[in-house]
């Protein structure tokens, strides 16, 4: 029985945190909301230098060949800092190529995805909901035609992994013929969304992806859950910090029992819940895929619900200042909303869980 992050995983989290602590400050993230061009790049190189890009990519293709849990622990840390950029989607795309590509495709793309020289994202839903493989309807022909919505950081992506009918997946490269990107006004300005239109666009099918399409989605669900856990935990820390400093009515507001209890109630929701994403990540590598899917659905549903509650409570607790743009508390709220509804709302995944549980 050993259910905890390893010392190595924690040390790696610390080194990521050290980097982000300097590079990914609140003003820096706020600036990405206002920037004209996509904001991901500035953190990208730093993280890639630390080796994040290749964590779960097989060693023969330049990665570290580690497990999803190793990556999820990093995403937790990135979530603490509401780090901009398509870390999660990049990982999903890399898994799609690792699990679904030919050896030639793997050799062609994975080393550059590992080093971060190439950036990737995923294009899944075509309108309302429709995130899971069974919902993809874009025809799988020699070239692609149609549109995908809510594609994160597409402008910045060298590769876009596209979900196709029957749960197939194909890779489209930057600048491909007939590929058109339209920026969408994104609530979470640190994860910019695009509508991606394909017009007789050349694409390369990942031949084995059909069998593992759900697993690639599960990667996304687990990593969103990890991001949510990191973010929610940080919301508590920032709230505690503020409650210790802010004085009203002659005392720190953290002395008021109402504030204490609101934070205790939050702690009881957030703090023990790390294991949900740990287990889901662990199960991805060590359990039957159906069991892993079930755990991923539950982790995503539960933790992203917790995150929205935590970020709302944090803003309320800050009072008027919490409602200001400058303070940046809203960064966590907006990320929480992203994590909550990207790849499907929690109630959808609870319904999936119920079915997978055989209810």
């Amino acid at each position: 029985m050993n259910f905890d992050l390893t010392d190595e995983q924690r040390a790696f989290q610390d080194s990521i945190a050290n980097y982000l602590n300097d590079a990914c400050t609140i003003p820096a993230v706020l600036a990405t909301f206002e920037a004209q061009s996509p904001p991901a790049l500035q953190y990208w190189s730093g993280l890639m230098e630390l080796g994040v890009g290749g964590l779960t990519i097989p060693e023969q293709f330049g990665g570290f060949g580690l497990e999803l849990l190793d990556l999820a622990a990093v995403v937790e840390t990135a979530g603490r800092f509401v780090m901009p950029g398509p870390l999660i989607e990049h990982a999903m795309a890399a898994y799609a190529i690792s699990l679904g590509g030919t050896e030639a495709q793997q050799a062609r793309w994975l080393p550059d995805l590992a080093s971060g020289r190439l950036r990737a994202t995923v294009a899944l839903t075509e309108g309302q909901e429709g995130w899971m493989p069974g919902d993809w309807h874009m025809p799988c022909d020699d070239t692609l035609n149609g549109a995908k919505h809510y594609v994160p950081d597409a402008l910045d992506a060298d590769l876009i992994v596209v979900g196709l009918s029957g749960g197939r997946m194909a890779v489209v490269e930057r600048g491909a013929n007939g590929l058109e990107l339209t920026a969408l006004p994104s609530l979470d300005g640190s994860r910019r969304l695009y509508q991606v239109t394909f017009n007789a666009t050349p694409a390369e099918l990942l031949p084995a992806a059909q069998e593992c399409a759900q697993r690639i989605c599960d990667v996304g669900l687990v990593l969103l859950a990890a991001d949510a856990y990191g973010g929610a935990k940080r919301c508590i820390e920032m709230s505690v910090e503020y409650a210790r400093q802010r004085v009203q009515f002659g005392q720190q507001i953290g002395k008021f029992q109402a504030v204490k209890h609101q934070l205790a109630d939050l702690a009881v929701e957030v703090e023990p819940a790390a294991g949900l994403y740990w287990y889901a990540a662990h199960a991805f590598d060590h359990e039957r895929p159906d069991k892993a899917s079930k755990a991923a659905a539950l982790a995503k549903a539960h933790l992203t619900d917790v995150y929205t509650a935590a970020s709302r409570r944090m803003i309320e607790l800050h009072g008027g200042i919490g409602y200001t743009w400058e303070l940046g508390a809203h960064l966590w709220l907006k990320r929480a909303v992203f994590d909550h509804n990207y790849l499907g709302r929690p109630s959808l995944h609870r319904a999936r869980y119920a079915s997978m549980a055989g209810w």
Partner: protein
Amino acid sequence: MDLHFSPEHETFRQEIQAFLSTNWQFEKDAKPAPEAIKAFRQLATEQGYLYRGVPKNYGGGEQPADVLKAQIIAQEFRRAGAPTEVLGVGTQMLVPTLLECGEEWQRERFVRKTIEGEYRWCQGYSEPNSGSDLASLRTRGELVGDEWVINGQKVWTSYARDANYMFALVRTEPEAPKHAGLSYLLIDLNQPGIDIRPLKQINGGTEFNEVFLENVRTPASWIVGPRGGGWKVSRSLLKHERNMIGSLDRSDALFASLLGLARRVQRDGAPALQDSAVRDRLAMLAGHLEVQRYSNYIQLTRESRGQSAGLLQMLNKLSQSNFGHLVAQTSLDLVQNDALLTGAPGRKLGNERWMNQYMGSLASSIAGGTSNIQRNIIAERGLGLPRDAANPTGEAS
């Protein structure tokens, strides 16, 4: 029990309708000239339909209080799309305060021009270190010759950039105990030393501002109430701040939109509204909405009889905030992918408009007395639980 209006009130409604059909003939979407609006307001005021609580000699409609008539006027004016009273803290807060606590010359000088929209006011209460705890305000005013010289910083000042005057709580008696040291001053914003900076909100809006005051001057006589009596003067407003009808209308409209959303959005190949979990949730919200409606009716009934609505009145704001939070939670589940978006200039707003409500519902549990302060007030003043110096109610203890 009678949910209808009396014959007297129905006659009044017909009178209003006749007035409106004669005097306000613009289409719903028309944009009448400011002069037309001003002239209409003046006429409606002379008829006693607007500014009913303001005496004629200050430009008001001067009518005996009648909450039901007030409701009928609000309903019919809204239905006709006719201009109502100028909104804002000037007409809603300053004017009643001057009528109650001001000197005669102050009323003559400020009331008419405020209700006609010439003087536009902002409120200078909150400061960076005094959110809930107004008694700790630090902006100082010193009487130098026949002028107050004011230095300090105000914050959360709504619409300050549109205002030309401010009413403010200023510490003029630094030696006095916390609440007793504040005075209620009127300040002309059109002078050097005033620096107004917009505060950007989490939803991108900028209704709020910081106002910096550096050696700002105002005549010695522009004080409402006695020196050091500002706290009490500012509290006299509380009874004028309510607009229940408006808040119920907002809840009704919010719920109707949410229902529309649930009809539009698909879930498992059918409208989400057919899902039993969604139906249960919306019916639960309908319960909360009807509670607000009938509580509102009870309060109207009691007030129209000159009775106090007591505890019910203290619960309105928290009920309203709670409802907003429940709606926010529900809408996030319903809007699905559009929750990832926000409004953008030039783009037609779809379901992502709900994200404004999602964020705005947070503001409603912060602004105008946080929910925690509301709970203290309800528990202590409403339920009679023992007061505790450490449980602030935003009130002098």
